[in-house]
């Protein structure tokens, strides 16, 4: 095996880490949330990812989060991680998370260690080496931002 293909292999493994593959195959909190107070759709027209995020916000706190839809491994895993991370967080903090994750993955902000609750999101770091895939990873977080800001329109990555 030549050097290039070894490196290529490593980058791919870094993108498709075990945690990402696991969440994409077995998405957590998948399905509709009937008593949602906030919802938003995320659409990535490039590859056809289409997710809907549901939140139930009780007294300024995210009490429940679910999502449904279809997408690539990266977008589904990212949404699945999101639902695990935001439950129990105050709405304001969840919005901060959305901003931090989007900044981290797009390279807009320097990748300092994330807040403890956001630790798992480092599993998505591999996407930074794949510019065409960053939008897949940020899609659910854009939807989170829209939902909490009560925007009724679909969030798109375009």
């Amino acid at each position, binding site marked *: 095996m030549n050097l*290039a*293909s070894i490196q290529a292999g490593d980058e*791919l493994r870094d993108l*498709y880490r075990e945690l990402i*593959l696991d969440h994409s195959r077995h998405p957590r909190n998948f399905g509709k949330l009937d008593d949602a107070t906030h919802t938003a759709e995320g659409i990535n027209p490039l*590859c*056809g990812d289409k997710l809907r995020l549901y939140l139930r916000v009780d007294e300024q706190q995210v009490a429940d989060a679910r999502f449904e839809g*279809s997408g*690539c491994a990266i977008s589904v895993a990212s949404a699945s991680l999101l639902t695990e991370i935001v439950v129990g967080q105050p709405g304001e903090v969840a919005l901060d998370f959305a901003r931090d994750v989007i900044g981290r993955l797009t390279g807009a902000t320097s990748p300092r260690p994330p807040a403890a609750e956001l630790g798992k999101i480092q599993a998505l770091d591999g996407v930074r080496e794949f510019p065409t895939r960053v939008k897949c990873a940020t899609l659910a977080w854009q939807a989170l931002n829209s939902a909490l800001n009560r925007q009724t329109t679909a969030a798109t990555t375009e």
Partner: protein
Amino acid sequence: MTQARLETDRHAPLAALREDFPALQQDIGGNGLVYLDSAASAQVPLSVIEKMAQYQSHDHANVHRGVHTLSHRATEAYEGARDKVQAFVNARSRAEIVLTSGTTEAINLVAQSYCRPLLQTGDRILITHLEHHSNIVPWQLVCEQTGAELVVAPIDEAGQVDMQEFTRLLDDNVRLVAAAHVSNALGTINPVRDIIARSHALDIPVLLDGAQGVPHLAIDVQELDCDFYAFSSHKMYGPTGVGVLYARESLLDSMPPYQGGGDMILEVTFSGTTYNELPYKFEAGTPNISGVVGLGAAVDYLQAAGMSNIAAHEAELLDYMMAQLANIDGIRLYGTASNKASVQSFMLEDVHPHDLGTILDHQGVAVRTGHHCAMPVMQYYDIPGTARASLGLYNNTADVDRLVTAIEKAKQVFA
């Protein structure tokens, strides 16, 4: 000796032509580029690039305008390219070759200039289920504008138009039939002769979307007997932003202009305007001159290679690719019509096509992933999209082998 053999003997072997394409001589991520996305846009040979550069460097001015030397040269180059295109598709006259910005504009031109004045409530336009969006949406628009109805002939599992249903839908209310010559998503070569014969039996004109036909098959519009034939330069090794509408002269004559502006007029006064003769009536404004010059050079290139050589080479390679792909455990092929060109769509197990595309790209293998601007085809199979490998004249069996190796690698990543 058959005609095909004679041609083969006269032309350089296709294998050597790969060297003519600068973009193919590069590495992606440390591996030699394997370009299997020609159906989206083909790479451009050096002769086309140089011809366009030479035009821009020495001969550029506006066309049909000035008496000065450069304007004359530009006009000669532009009109010379039209003549090449006319000969290439064997149109009766150069008046039948309208230069557009692409297949999309050519189809919109027909929808708006031919159909819109004609259509009334109760009229129908008949298309097929395997069309590209650009052979769907222009008809939806004109139907909305006129109250006409768009009807769709279904396809079967293999990706072939159900000709029995097509015939049933083809009735006296149909004003135009529009069908792909070759499907960009599935590779199906539609039975266009049959479609045209049945439509003409009822005096219904036929538009063929030839975007994927021209690069892979020798086209003779007179022999096909189609009424409109639309295609794009960038799918046939020319530059983007240029395309062609072939149309029967009698139809073009009867149609009002598509856009108004300079070049499409003979005389303008405030009490009225006289339109220019064909094909200029349909070419408003300063055209994409260098692009058209590039298209002319691409036609030269294809003719030197020989369309029958190209078709034979690609058909053989497609058979090889389909067989190799079918051998991979967990792969499902979409588009298995008995008559196909250039394209194979597929899915690997439950791997999303976008993930598959990323892994292949990482190994230097460029395929298209997604819905290929043919969402109804994806809806038919109930899938979000496919990965699609498409062949050009420069591809070879080694490219296919690299594709297979890269897919095996994807299986490992997702194992």
